[in-house]
Every structure is written in structure tokens, then in C-alpha cells.
């Protein structure tokens, strides 16, 4: 495909902090959303005439609604702790991709229009008018942030650039400047139920095919139920799990776990998507509308539990916001957390000795684990401190004999983004995605060289797709990225007698 040539980063043993290159990626901006995508989400179809007034009005609303945003605008002391923490800065060298640089794009406008010193002495405090040039910079650089929140870990004040990016995108949508990738997808979920636009007959056909595959492969009649009323568990998983590789091997893993544990479960054609891109564009209304589909499906099918599959930001939305977005869930079984992550389900079953594994089935692989940003920095698992780090690793250790973590500075709460999160997993941003993957690829290269690591497991659909591309770009193999539940599925000892 016609992708413009760009300089390929060289993977080094240690990543030096790059010298600044002003405007290095100012040419990058994703395709803008078409009129009908915008309108279906409740936004103007194109840039409105009085856009400055509307944008500043919206910004004022958000500053009132989200106290955090005002605190983030006011409290930065420009200390520099965040500057070298963003994978996009490290990969692109553009100072606007330093978290503080990215924040300052909004901070200048904030100071001009919402603070007294900015109104009276704009030059002294770096206050700027919201001009078309500034809006263009916002569009470019707020779409060069994957909202991964790594910078916030290092900020002594705790400023969360992700929230600033989300607010900026919400303001831009409100004046008619939206991003095609996110907004087209959100429209598809509203209309069809998932990011892909996969209609029920196609989903049913795909699941039927998987049942045949698994039966042929291991001789066990593992089901992939769809819209089964009265099932105990409703599984909400990213639609990429139905469609793409290596995602589908994760789905097969979940199905084997449910089968072996004797848990009745179902997927829903109404809520056939875990992802919630409403968060990426900072839109509470869209995020809520998407989340409500899950509630509707749970009520309609009469399930007792809701379990989420491997999807990073979906787990943030589910873990942190689902109850306020779409609750109360008092109709579910109170003995289980609402919602639950598939890793929590599997981990619990391992602890109770319900699942047994033949680890040698995975002996051809030496594994490392990529912590997905939204799971790592915005959620928890298992109701224990750091459970979002320990549960996936426990599962890997229970199912394989060979596991090595990457460098401490690049895992757990300090994990580097895959380079494609936050609504940036689109081909029009391929340069940004490949450059942003550099820090993760360097860390991977070290464990490959030091420990012979052959595969990286992940628990996020975006990470898996992004790595499929980045691995090929950086000289690894496409199939070296795998789903965590593929390891589970491959090693799980299945009881064939139950047939």
C-alpha cells in the first residue's frame, strides 16, 4: 500500500533520550471523519462557522464538569520529569510529543481564555488565542497520544495527559472536526453492535466454524454459544477475537476454559464488542450508549455474570466505569465481581484445581508478557494490589515452563504502549505507530537476545494487531505475538469423557 517512506528507527540496547527535532511529526494527522459519521454520533458534520466560540464554550463546560482538567491545566510546574517518558516522543523526537509539550497546546489556550494573567499579560504566561493553526496542531498532536498514561506515573503532581487528550478530542468533535477511524467505528457499534460491523449471521457462521476447528483439532465438542438465554456467563470480548489472528486463539482459549470448568456461557450478538471507543474521543454520552448495550444484553439473556475477554481499554471502562455508566447490576449474582476479567476467571479456576495443564504443550515457546497500558495503569484484577500484573503472569507460569520478563523500566506500571492504542490503530498513522513501537521493540529485542524469548503474550486486541504489524517492521515474525489465553488453551488438559 502506498505509505510514504519514513526514517526507520534503529533498535539499540539502551534507548538514549533523542535530541529534539522541532515539528518532526507535524505532518501526521489521521483522516477526518465524514459528515455522516459525525452526525450519527451527535456532532456537527463539518467545521462550524463560529467554531472558536463553540470550542471555548465546550472547553469551559469541560473545565467545570471535570475538576481534574482544570487542576491539570493549572498545576504543571514544567519540571521536565515527563519529557522522556512518552514512547511517541522517544520514537519521533518531536517536542510536541513530550507530555508537557502536548499539554501546553491546550494550556496556552486555557491561560488566554480562562485565567486573568493570561487575559492581561498573555506573552508573559505563554497564553495563545485559539486560531485555526492552533486547532490544526491540536488535531495533529492530540492524535499522537495513545492515552496510555505512562507520563502520569512519573509526573510528581499526577497530571494525566490522557484526560487532556480526551478533552481536546471532545472539543474538536463538538466543532465538527472528528477522527474517521474512531467515529466510523463508534457508529458501527451503535448500529450493528461491534467495531467490525459484523452482523449476526456472519458471527454465527464464524463461531460455528470455530467449533468445527476445535473438534477437529482436539476431538472435544467445545461450544461457542451465541445468544443463549439463561446461560450463567455473558462473555463480552473485542470483535477482533472473532475476526483476526492471533486474537481468535485467545477466544478458543476462553471457550476451552469454560468448557472444562463446566461453566455455561454465551456471547451476545447485540453486545458483540468489548471495546468502547467512546473513551478515546472523551465522549461520556457515546461511552455510556455503548456500555448500555452490555446491560441490555445481560438483562435480555438473563445471565448471572459478565466476563470481559482480552481487551485493554475495555477493561478500564468495565472495571472503572461500567457500574456508573450502565449500572446498577443488582440483577447479577452477587458472589462474583461485576464485571470480571477472563484472567480472573481462569486464575481462580487454577487456584481451585479445576484446571490442569500439560505445560510441555507450550515447550516450543519462550514467553515474555506485554502489560497493556489500560490494564496496567487504570485497573486491577483479583482484588489484590498489583493483581493486574500478577494474575496474567501467574497464568503464564501455570501453563508454560519458560517465562522471562522484559526490563523493569518497561513493564507493569511503567509499561510502554504498543504504539497503537487510544484510537490510533489506523493505517493513516502507520509512521507514528511504527516509531512509537520502538521502546517496546527495544525491550523485546533484549529478552530475545538474552533469554531466547520466542513469543510475546498480550491481553489486548489493539496490542495484538499493532504488534503483528510492528514485529514484521522490526524484523520479528508476525506469529511471535500471541494471546495469553492461547497458552491456556494449548496446555489445558481437556476431559474427553464428558463428551
Amino acid at each position, binding site marked *: 500500500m502506498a505509505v510514504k517512506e519514513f526514517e526507520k528507527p534503529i533498535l539499540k540496547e539502551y534507548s538514549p533520550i533523542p535530541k529534539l527535532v522541532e515539528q518532526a511529526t507535524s505532518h501526521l494527522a489521521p483522516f477526518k471523519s465524514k459528515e455522516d459519521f459525525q452526525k450519527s454520533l451527535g456532532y456537527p458534520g463539518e467545521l462550524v462557522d463560529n467554531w472558536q466560540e463553540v470550542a471555548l464554550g465546550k472547553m469551559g463546560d469541560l473545565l467545570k464538569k471535570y475538576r481534574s482538567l482544570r487542576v491539570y491545566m493549572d498545576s504543571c510546574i514544567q519540571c521536565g520529569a515527563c519529557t522522556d517518558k512518552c514512547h511517541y516522543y522517544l520514537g519521533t523526537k518531536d517536542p510536541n510529543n513530550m507530555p508537557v509539550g502536548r499539554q501546553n497546546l491546550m494550556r496556552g489556550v486555557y491561560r488566554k481564555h480562562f485565567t486573568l494573567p493570561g487575559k492581561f499579560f498573555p506573552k508573559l504566561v505563554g497564553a495563545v488565542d485559539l486560531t485555526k493553526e492552533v486547532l490544526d496542531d491540536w488535531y495533529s498532536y492530540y492524535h499522537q497520544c495513545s492515552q496510555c498514561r505512562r507520563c502520569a506515573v512519573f509526573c510528581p503532581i499526577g497530571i494525566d495527559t490522557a484526560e487532556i487528550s480526551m478533552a481536546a478530542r471532545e472539543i474538536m468533535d463538538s466543532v465538527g472536526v472528528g477522527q474517521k477511524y474512531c467515529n466510523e467505528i463508534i457508529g458501527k457499534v451503535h448500529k450493528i453492535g461491534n467495531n467490525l460491523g459484523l452482523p449476526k449471521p*456472519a458471527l454465527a457462521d464464524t463461531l460455528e466454524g470455530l467449533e468445527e476447528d476445535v473438534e477437529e483439532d482436539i476431538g472435544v465438542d467445545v461450544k461457542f454459544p451465541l445468544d443463549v438465554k439463561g446461560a450463567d456467563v455473558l462473555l463480552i470480548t*473485542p470483535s477482533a477475537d472473532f475476526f483476526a489472528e492471533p486474537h*481468535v486463539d485467545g477466544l478458543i482459549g476462553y471457550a476451552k476454559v469454560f468448557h472444562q470448568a463446566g461453566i455455561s456461557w454465551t456471547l451476545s450478538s447485540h453486545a458483540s464488542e468489548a471495546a468502547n471507543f467512546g473513551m478515546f474521543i472523551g465522549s461520556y454520552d457515546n461511552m455510556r450508549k455503548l456500555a448500555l448495550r452490555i446491560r441490555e444484553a445481560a438483562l435480555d439473556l438473563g445471565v448471572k455474570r459478565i466476563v470481559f475477554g482480552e481487551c485493554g481499554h475495555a477493561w478500564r471502562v468495565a472495571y472503572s466505569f461500567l457500574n456508573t455508566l450502565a449500572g446498577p447490576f443488582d440483577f447479577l449474582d452477587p458472589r462474583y465481581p461485576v464485571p470480571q476479567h477472563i484472567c480472573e476467571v481462569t486464575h481462580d479456576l487454577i487456584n481451585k484445581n479445576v484446571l490442569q495443564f500439560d505445560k510441555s504443550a507450550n515447550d516450543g515457546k519462550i514467553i515474555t508478557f506485554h502489560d497493556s497500558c489500560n490494564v496496567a495503569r487504570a485497573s486491577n484484577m483479583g482484588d489484590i494490589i498489583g493483581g493486574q500484573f500478577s494474575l496474567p503472569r501467574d497464568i503464564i507460569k501455570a501453563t508454560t515452563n519458560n517465562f522471562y520478563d522484559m526490563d523493569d523500566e518497561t513493564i507493569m506500571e511503567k509499561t510502554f504502549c504498543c504504539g497503537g492504542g487510544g484510537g490510533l490503530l489506523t493505517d493513516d498513522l502507520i509512521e507514528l505507530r511504527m516509531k512509537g513501537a520502538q521502546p517496546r521493540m527495544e525491550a523485546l529485542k533484549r529478552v530475545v537476545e538474552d533469554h531466547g524469548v520466542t513469543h510475546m503474550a498480550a491481553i489486548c486486541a489493539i496490542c495484538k494487531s499493532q504488534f503483528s504489524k510492528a514485529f514484521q517492521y522490526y524484523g520479528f515474525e508476525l506469529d511471535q505475538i500471541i494471546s495469553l489465553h492461547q497458552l491456556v488453551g494449548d496446555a489445558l488438559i481437556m476431559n474427553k469423557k464428558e463428551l
Partner: protein
Amino acid sequence: MPIEVNGKSFETDEEGYLADLSLWEKDLATAMAKEDDIDLGDDHWEIINFLREYYEEYQIAPAVRVLTKAVGKKLGKDKGNSKYLYELFPYGPGKQACKFAGLPKPTGCV
């Protein structure tokens, strides 16, 4: 950006996917492939034809596993895998083959 083939102009979106699926013709696929430096052979056509048939029935491109299985059944097990499809369509069977087949681009976390 429209593509000109046999004196006809075909409208596409920003990424080169055909705007109107019903206007697709074989020469258009050949022209799109040429832009990506691919000469379409019988192997490519097997995939493109399957994609179009599947789309007609389900209004969506087939999942990768559905596609590899169908290819495996028709052309032999050694070809029923992603590696084979990537050899034919280096930019990814889901996206590049769909483009040549006139299908819309698969969206989402794929």
C-alpha cells in the same frame, strides 16, 4: 482519489478502497494490485473471488480463520494458513485482498 481503468473512473476513499462495491470489475483489481507492485495470478484470484462471494452472503469480509479454512479445503492444507495469505498479500490478507476485491476496509482493532 479516483482510479482510471479502461477509460472509466472509479471513485475510492482516502485509502484507495472502492466507494461503490457494485461497480467493481476484474481490471480494476488488477490496476489496484499493480499500484501495490503485485501481479495478480490464479492464486490471488482464488482469494479475491472467495472474498466477494462471502461478502455477498454476509455483508462483511470473512474472518481470517474462515478464510484460511476455506483456502485449506480448496487448495490443500499447506495453504490454509495466514503465512500463505501474507505471501500473496504482504500488507495483510484482511486489508489488501479486501481492497482488490472492492470490499470496504475492515474496521476495528484488526
